[in-house]
């Protein structure tokens, strides 16, 4: 299948914990056939609902890190003075790099007069291709305290595209990360549609507006749905009005329903249970497919 026939939907939220993953898993089942991509590589949860069986596992190498060979360090401190990331400290007669703070910029490695700094490639996590009951899935886990989550998201998306082309599946559904920073930008650029799942709170509205502005910045069409809308119907109306005026399609509301947690406990998508929230998600899915 050529790339022009493939559509890609990303589910975002701005604010975390609004129900992205529960909606994505439900879409995966309703789509019948799609490639799934978990782009929330920081705290990936989609696998808890779709119970993938891992078929391939790959180390994610990205960037480099600077490491001082203590025996060769004269303690001159040039590295420390040139580091913009405050990652180098003096320890006794030598300098030491905090691997967590190191940005991997190579400045110290270049400047060290003793050539006492190594600059090896850094393992930042792993990515996997798996099979699930609703199609192939590409997912990843970023290492604890690791960098480059944006690049790992890009890797996950590239692999999802490769699977879609290879298996002739015309739809990719990805579970996006929260926020508006580098992993979100990496998951958003060039997609066919971004669906933003929000909640009827002051924070939900504020964060929605920032993520919609980001999508506009990258010329990505947007749609919005409000989860747990009945917690605050007034705020729901306000959010839908704000979404419309920002040019986003309003696709529906999901009621507050404890079945969502029940579904998690049973490792199922909420549409696999007999639940009101599942019915609401079906309505939204129909709208979304029309927009795609």
């Amino acid at each position, binding site marked *: 299948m050529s790339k022009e026939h493939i559509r890609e939907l990303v589910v975002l*939220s*701005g*604010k*975390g*914990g*609004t129900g992205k*993953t529960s909606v994505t898993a439900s879409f995966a089942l309703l789509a019948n056939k799609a490639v799934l991509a978990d782009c929330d590589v*920081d*705290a990936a*949860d989609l696998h*808890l609902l779709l119970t993938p069986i891992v078929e391939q596992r790959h180390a994610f190498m990205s*960037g*480099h890190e600077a490491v001082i060979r203590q025996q060769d360090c004269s303690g001159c401190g040039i590295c420390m003075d*040139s580091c*913009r*990331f*405050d990652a180098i400290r003096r320890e006794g007669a030598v300098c030491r790099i905090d691997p*967590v*703070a190191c*940005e*991997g*910029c*190579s*400045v110290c490695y*270049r*400047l060290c007069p003793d050539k006492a700094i190594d600059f090896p490639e850094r393992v930042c996590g792993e990515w996997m291709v798996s099979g699930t009951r609703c199609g192939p899935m590409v997912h990843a886990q*970023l290492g*604890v*305290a*690791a*960098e480059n*989550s*944006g690049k790992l998201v890009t890797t996950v998306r590239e692999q999802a595209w490769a699977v879609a082309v290879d298996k002739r599946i015309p739809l990719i559904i990805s579970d996006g*990360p*929260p*926020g*508006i*920073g*580098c992993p*979100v*930008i990496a998951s958003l650029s060039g997609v066919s549609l971004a669906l933003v799942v929000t*909640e*009827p*709170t*002051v*924070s*939900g509205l*504020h*964060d929605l507006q*920032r993520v919609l502005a*980001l999508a506009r*910045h990258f010329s990505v069409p947007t749609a919005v749905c409000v989860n*747990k809308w009945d*917690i*605050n119907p007034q*705020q729901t109306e306000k959010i839908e009005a704000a979404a419309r005026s920002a040019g986003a399609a309003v696709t529906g509301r999901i009621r507050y329903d404890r079945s969502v*947690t029940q579904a*998690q*406990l049973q*490792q199922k998508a909420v549409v696999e249970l007999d639940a009101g929230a599942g019915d609401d998600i079906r309505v939204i899915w129909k709208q979304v497919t029309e927009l795609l």
Partner: protein
Amino acid sequence: MAAARKQNSYRIAVASGKGGTGKTTVALNLAAMFGEPVQLADCDVEEPNDNLFLRCEQLTPHEVTMLVPEVDPQRCNGCGACGELCQFRGIVSLGSRALVFPELCHGCGGCALVCPTGALTEHPHRIGTISVGQSGTIRLIEGRLEVGVSLVPPVIRAVRDQLLDDVPAILDAPPGTSCPVVATLRESDYLVLVTDPTPFGLHDLKLAVALAKELGLPCGVVVNRAGEDLVGLHSYCQAENLPILLSLPDDRQIAEVTSRGDLVALALPEYGLMFSELATKLKHELAKTGGTP
């Protein structure tokens, strides 16, 4: 860790792994019931929400900038030394001239250092804003990433730079476990992890605990929307020796008050009491772990 700071300048970070577990709710209500003046640093700079609840008037913003190179076309001979050094593709040499991509630059300054003709000078590039305000006993420092900018840690570092050295601080962290969270937790004395008793909540709590261990930070847990523990959260905390500092019940009233932008501790007095107790417990934990009080 915080040896350079004065006594009583201890820092408590509130984080979670999973988003939407109630970090902001806990950080805000804890600050409101702290029992003494406190600083609240909103380090969730991608989506800062604290001031939606505090509604400080005097939030005078100032810019956060990062140094990004500019090319002097007169001096650049297109040798490519800058692009060879840059690890982030923020500068590349195309034909006879270097080209800068500010959105990819990490501001390390390396390109200007290696440029043999002095064609690169660094200039401030706006990546966000910092605002400081006061609401009752709370001094709020808010960081706000500019929409479209991908580099988050420098804005968080700018928030931390505004912290006063003689007042305790609560840091409201972003979700996740990667560089923005690490930038927040640096130089903290104690970590409060907020979770809920769901499979997602427990899974992401484990990631956050792994991060705390990596950073050598003592931590305790706040359980939000606590109901029946169907996932074994309590036995996990016991096995990991994590104190449960507070359990907030799954009460629809909390969700409603919070949805309006009001503080639970002030709107519902029984919860005010619970947050005062949380403040007391945290000070005990800090004494136990050597962070101060």
